């Protein structure tokens, strides 16, 4: 999934890029409104994050220009001022959501996931990726969510996490090599720190395993990779 981030502050742009890349998205950054429109034309992203106050062309104008072409594409505004938000809502620009600065990573991730979910739900053409089982969780890839069978507990997942879980679930009781997971979920041209995978696994265990210290389903095979024990 391709996300376009239009934000004039380079640090915020960088931070968001890193964060969303980690989440498993393909990210393109733009430093002003004009560049954002050019990038939009070039890359045809599936989601756009727009800062309102930008040089050359502000977020509103960019939004309007994009909406002329595509009424469906999810757009999330970034805003520092409540007045701007008022305007976004008041003008009914077709924003799907907005995030007030300053924001935390969890907020951003949650909003993007929620918007994506809604977007996917509305897209009739989207192929329904079937859900799969992991431990006592049922994983719903399109919803980026894991639910227990009784439906009482639910956990939000990132795109990358779903990918990892899918690999594990598809090959139960088989050791999945670290490189394979990297290739599959990060891409070939990506060479992340090996710790990155471990951190993801740790995070998943924290949320899914009944006891993260004594994992039942996601087992570490030292020096090789991981194995799923159903």
């Amino acid at each position: 999934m391709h996300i376009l981030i239009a934000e004039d502050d380079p640090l915020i742009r960088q931070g968001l890029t890193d964060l969303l890349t980690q989440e498993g998205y393909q990210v393109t950054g733009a430093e002003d409104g004009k560049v954002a429109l050019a990038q939009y034309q070039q890359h045809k992203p599936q989601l756009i994050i727009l800062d309102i106050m930008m040089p050359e062309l502000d977020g509103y104008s960019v939004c309007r220009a994009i909406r002329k072409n595509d009424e469906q594409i999810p757009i999330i505004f970034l805003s520092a001022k409540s007045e701007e938000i008022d305007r976004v809502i008041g003008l009914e620009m077709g924003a799907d959501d907005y995030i007030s600065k300053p924001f935390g990573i969890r907020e951003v991730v949650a909003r993007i996931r929620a918007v994506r979910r809604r977007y996917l739900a509305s897209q009739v053409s989207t192929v329904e990726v079937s859900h799969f089982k992991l431990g006592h969780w049922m994983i719903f890839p399109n919803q980026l969510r894991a639910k227990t069978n009784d439906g009482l507990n639910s956990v939000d997942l990132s795109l990358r996490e779903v990918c990892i879980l899918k690999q594990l679930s598809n090959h139960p009781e088989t050791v999945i090599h670290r490189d394979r997971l990297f290739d599959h979920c990060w891409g070939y041209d990506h060479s992340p720190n090996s710790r990155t995978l471990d951190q993801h696994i740790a995070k998943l265990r924290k949320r899914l395993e009944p006891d993260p210290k004594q994992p039942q389903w996601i087992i570490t095979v030292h020096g090789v990779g991981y194995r799923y024990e159903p």
Partner: protein
Amino acid sequence: MKYRLPIILVLLITLPLLLLAWQSYRLLNNEKAVQQAQFTQLAKLRQQQSINIIKDYFNKHANQWQSQIPQWSLTESSLNQIIHQSPKINQLFLIGTDKQRDYPIESTQYSKSTHHFIQRMQTIWDDPERLFSNDQQYDQESQTIAPPNTKNFKRKTSNFLSSTPVKTVTKNASPSTRSGWAMWHWESSVIVIYWHQYADDKIIGIELNSSLLMADIIALLPDTDGSVEQQHYVQRLINGNGQIAYEWGDKKLNFTQQKNLHSTLLPYPLSTWQLEYFASPDQQQAFGLISLLLLGIFAILLFSMGYYLYQEYHREVHLAAQRVSFVSQVSHELKTPLTNIRLYAEMLEDSLDDEPKSQQYSQIIVNESQRLTRLINNVLSFSRKAKVHLSAINIDEEIHQTVEYFIPGFKLRHLQVNFQLNVNQPIFADSDGLDQIVNNLLSNVEKYAVKGKQVDIITEIIPVLEPNSSAYFILKIRDYGKGITQHAQKHIFKPFYRVDDHISEGVSGTGIGLSIALQQAERMGATLSLTPVDQGACFEFKLPIKDLN
């Protein structure tokens, strides 16, 4: 509210003005009344002067004739002679002891003037007693008629054309003789008779030459010479037919207004005549003008003062607005670095090993940046009232998320959060507003009630109890600290109020948290109040639930 100051200013200007106007109106009225009284007094005085002239004239002639008549020989030729020589006398008559006319002597051929005389005196020939028997008293003082009543005043028109003698006058001191005046109207002129009754009952009557009478009176009355004394008033003599006989006084004045008119009837025997007095309204106008001028000056002063105040106020407001704008500008500028601090701190935290110290440090950075965020948001919501955006939100989740940010800080202070979130349904609320309320309430707990060790976060729904009321969403945040004193309870929601006791000593704060929380609550149609509890403080947020449909 925007117009409060202008309204107050307008009131400040208009009220004293109205008061002043009212006062000066009253003063003017009083002055008018005083002037009216003075006018009436002056009018009476001046009219009395004129009346005295006329009175004296009649008295002089009465006296003159009273002494002359007894000396007259009553033969025809001597009476003829008297008429012939005396300018004042138009005609004479003599009534004998038998009540019959002795003079003018009965004849078949009267001269024209005698003929007319006999005609107009017919009533006397019929009954000579009428000269004096008609004994009605009349006031020595002339009757005065106040000007406003002039309308009601009607001349006794019956006297005009009737040939009845009106009345008779002074009885002589001597018992045997008496004399007096008699007057009546005949055709369009007045007949004035001086009569004298001899001891032997003979009556001699003198008909005055009415033209000369008039001319004499005119000659005696003042003329219009433009002397200072006569300025500002005019008088005129109105005869029994309502015609102006003579007019004098200030050249520039005319009998124009009824208002400054004063009428007085003349004394007998000209009692159907009137003296009218009219004074210049100049002085009154002058007073009115002066007071109007003063009022105007005062009004101008007040207005300029008001305008100055309004300008000053505007300047202040503008300055304040500039300050607020500056503060919010600065606050906004702070947001970008703050975003970065928080973003990167959280990302750092995520990528750190489970090494407890590093985790803790990054956590502190995250928490402090959040605190800074709250402060900035408070400042901003105080300087600008944001709009309310109501939407259906999962309120428990929303609250939980907000509280979650505090948990690390609470943990450090050994404060435990007890959740009792019982609302498992979407509620229409403003999520930013709710966030700010919870933030501010928990900030206070963090600041003032850490010693209570516990904080309860309770949500619940009160179902519809009465048919016409709605269901309510309730959020309670309760601590177990020192609580809030009775005195402070009244003020805690006021901006910039800080509970001034040992609890708040050394604790920093802006004093706007609760007032913002209350504001936010009210803006989404909810209430925020302090509910009494045994220990600590319990704030209750109560939001009527709107039907989601």
